[in-house]
């Protein structure tokens, strides 16, 4: 049995909404797991069930070999960082960190020691006497993490903790969370709807949609090998291009071009997925693109255009190429990196 075990966990709210469907998942000790998915997909509910803030309708949650279903959140030895930090507004930073320890009946000197260590680790030693209202967003974030670290819990739970920060700070805190987790080595679950955060932080990633884990794997596995249309569309920025097509006798015909010798036995209506970065310019390429707009990011250009049948399409090329708006491009798929999904079920078929 692994460190955290979820077995057929289901959550049905009293009003009948099914937020999480029979989800099973194992997380190893020290692992950084990220739950990613669109809002309302059940990722936060799953996290809150691990914390004990939501009742489990069906299934079991085991933490460190102990069944957690009926254990009170205060007894679970988990720490959580909330989206709005939930700092205690009337206590100074020191007491914010110390409160959980005091409740566990730890003596004063040990508390002081632990709080000071955590404060040092997070570089908040200078603010220990301040109230949360006197801190900036980034500092509050650190205090929230300090409150989690100081208790030395079995597991860290992060509920979209970076979404209240501005873009620059978010990237910085993202790095710090990752470094900190590696340094402290505590098992962590991080919930986010931001796929870049998910990709950069995760040891393993669970892509969740409609209360179901669509795919579980390392970020690169998921990027290289999405198992469903949803995962393919959700992971990767800019989003994967999707084209309608038809598959027959290992030959795909779509939008005026054909790809032969595809390794599949599937016949029927399909969706072809091509990542914008898996394309290159070539004469007589498969895809003809009439360019509407070019976004210059410096390192890359994002080229947006339309195919012959007016379908939107995106192509990513190195930033040193100049591409004129209104011109035509001929593109080929690099190294046969394309994905074919069954149109009716969304399942990958090649």
């Amino acid at each position, binding site marked *: 049995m692994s460190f955290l075990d979820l077995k057929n966990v289901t959550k049905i709210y009293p009003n009948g909404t099914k937020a999480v469907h029979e989800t099973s998942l194992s997380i190893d000790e020290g692992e950084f797991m990220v739950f990613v998915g669109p809002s309302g997909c059940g990722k936060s509910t799953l996290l809150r069930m691990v914390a*004990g803030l939501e009742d489990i309708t069906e299934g079991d949650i085991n933490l460190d070999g102990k069944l957690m279903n009926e254990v009170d959140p*205060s007894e679970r030895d988990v*720490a959580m960082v*909330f989206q709005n930090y939930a700092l*205690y507004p009337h206590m100074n930073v020191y007491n914010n960190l110390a*409160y959980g320890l005091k409740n566990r009946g730890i003596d004063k000197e040990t508390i002081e020691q632990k709080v000071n260590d955590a404060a040092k680790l997070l570089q908040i030693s200078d603010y220990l006497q301040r109230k949360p*209202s006197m801190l900036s967003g980034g500092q509050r974030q650190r205090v929230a993490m300090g409150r989690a670290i100081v208790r030395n819990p079995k597991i860290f739970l992060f509920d979209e903790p970076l979404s209240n920060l501005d873009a620059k700070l978010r990237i910085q805190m993202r790095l710090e969370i990752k470094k900190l987790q590696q340094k402290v080595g505590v098992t962590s679950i991080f919930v986010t709807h931001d796929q870049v955060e998910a990709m950069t932080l995760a040891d393993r990633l669970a892509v969740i949609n409609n209360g179901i884990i669509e795919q579980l794997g390392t970020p690169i596995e998921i990027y290289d090998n999405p198992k469903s249309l949803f995962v393919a569309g959700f992971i990767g920025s800019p989003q994967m291009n999707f084209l309608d097509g038809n598959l027959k006798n290992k030959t795909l015909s779509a939008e005026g071009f054909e790809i032969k010798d595809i390794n599949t036995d599937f016949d029927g209506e399909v969706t072809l997925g091509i990542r914008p970065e898996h394309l290159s310019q070539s004469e007589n390429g498969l895809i003809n693109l009439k360019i509407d707009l070019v976004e210059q990011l410096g390192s890359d250009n994002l080229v947006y255009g339309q195919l012959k049948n007016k379908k939107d399409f995106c192509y990513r090329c190195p930033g040193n190429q100049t591409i004129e708006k209104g011109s035509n491009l001929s593109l080929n798929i690099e190294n046969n990196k394309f994905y074919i999904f069954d149109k009716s079920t969304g399942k990958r078929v090649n």
Partner: protein
Amino acid sequence: MKFKPLQIIAHIILILGVLLMVVPIWISFASSSHDSVTILTEGMKFHIGDQLARNYNEVLNEKGGWSEEVTAAKMFINSFIMALGIATLKVVISAMSAYALVYYRFKLAVPIFWLIFITLLVPLEVRIFPSYKIVSDLGLTNSYTGLILPLVASATATFFFRQFYKTIPDELLESAKLDGANAWSFFIDFLVPLSKTMIAAMFIFMFVYGYSQYLWPLIMTTAEEYWTVVMGMKIIYTESYEGVALPRTAERFAYIILSMIPPVLVVVFLQKWFIKGLIQTEK
């Protein structure tokens, strides 16, 4: 800095407002420093007279009442105890019942809240006979408990605390839970300090409410040692030998001025908290 006409008008209005509040009190105070005869013959006074010490000394130490057993000083103490008891218990009970209503999501929470709220429609004056019956059956007439107890339930304060608790984000409770706080420590460590401002405000209102009770102590107390200020105001200088002596107007003014002191002190003292609370809870 030059004043614009609008500002001048605004200031005049403000000054008039201040005068409206202060002048009656000043007249009472000034009148309390004269001889009763002077006031009766010349009307109320704007300037301080020479009888200040004598009048106040008389009010505080002279025994009055039907059987001349109670001094005004004793009545101030009674009123203070009554108001303090009412205010403290009202705040404690309301805060706790609001806590139960907001945080324990039992099925009947909403009907129970409305039931509490409806009691606003039935003030003490309306239910005075049943209330008196109960208190007298319990043998609590002529006691501080009897003065305080029937007045400690407060729908208003419960309502205000409930509204305040509802604004406290759920994450705070969840975070406290994960930090090992139980129901009691969440109330003491979080809700009480967070609602300090609220508590101070409620305490002030309820203290003044308790202090200015008239009907209930009037009915409740037959022993003069439990008389309160407001009822005393009517009774203490009513001369039993009517028509013979002059009304003791000056002493009454002195009595009124003295009776204002306890609530004023409470407001002054709690105002510090009030403002402190306002500054600290801003997010």
